[in-house]
């Protein structure tokens, strides 16, 4: 549960980033934004906040351990 705020944050950041891209790139980006919002962002407020982004899970720790072998 402690990971939740961070996850939400990264998703938000990603969306913000996309928006930023749209802004900086002018028309092409803005056009893209429309496409993006029609599907990618449709449910962004709910499920897509789950699980995004890297975190050091047990699986990841085991992967590092094996890699360091």
């Amino acid at each position, binding site marked *: 549960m402690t990971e939740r705020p961070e996850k939400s*944050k*990264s998703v938000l*950041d*990603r969306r913000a*980033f*996309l928006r930023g*891209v*749209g802004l*900086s*790139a002018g028309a*092409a*980006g803005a056009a*893209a934004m429309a*496409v*993006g919002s029609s*599907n*990618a962002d*449709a*449910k*962004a407020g709910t*499920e*897509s906040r*789950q*699980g*995004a*982004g*890297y*975190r*050091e*899970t047990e*699986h*990841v720790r085991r*992967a*590092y351990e*094996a*890699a*360091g*072998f």
Partner: protein
Amino acid sequence: MARMKFLCDAERCIHCSGCVTACKNEHEVPWGINRRRVVTINDGKPGQRSLSVACMHCSDAPCMAVCPVDCFYQTNDGIVLHNKDLCIGCGYCFYACPFGAPQYPSTGNFGGRGKMDKCTFCAGGPEEDHSKAELEKYGRNRIAEGKLPLCAEMCATKALLAGDGDMVSTIYRERVMARGFGSGAAGWGHAYGKKG
């Protein structure tokens, strides 16, 4: 904040292509598209070395800079992803990329290209995590599952390392210390700048 990186240790890479098929398997990458591949130099001669190469997810990614539709974005973890709905398949990113990472699915009539495809660091794309759309366009999202790219996780000799850049450099550094030599982290300077 963790910064995701790849590193391929040329002292370890044996060109077994496990990374390549792991990627195919995980993402059902179609025939003709190779998000990752292994390159061997001086093949058959002393000095022969192999390296597994894919998108390095550069800090200051040239693909992002040149894309005319700005379909690229970088996640908080430093992973460079792109939006296939925006991509127009122009191929500029391929010319810009120092690693030859971008791939195009079809060579139809008149040399037209399909949407660009490349390594996602197993982090999917802009679609909702684990959605059907994400799976079909970008493949599985292992990062969101709390895992690392499968190519590195399955590397036969642990030559290919992936994950938090600090961890990756620690593992590599310890290895180089133990053996007393290293062939350098190929491509790191190019991908991640001097800071690493």
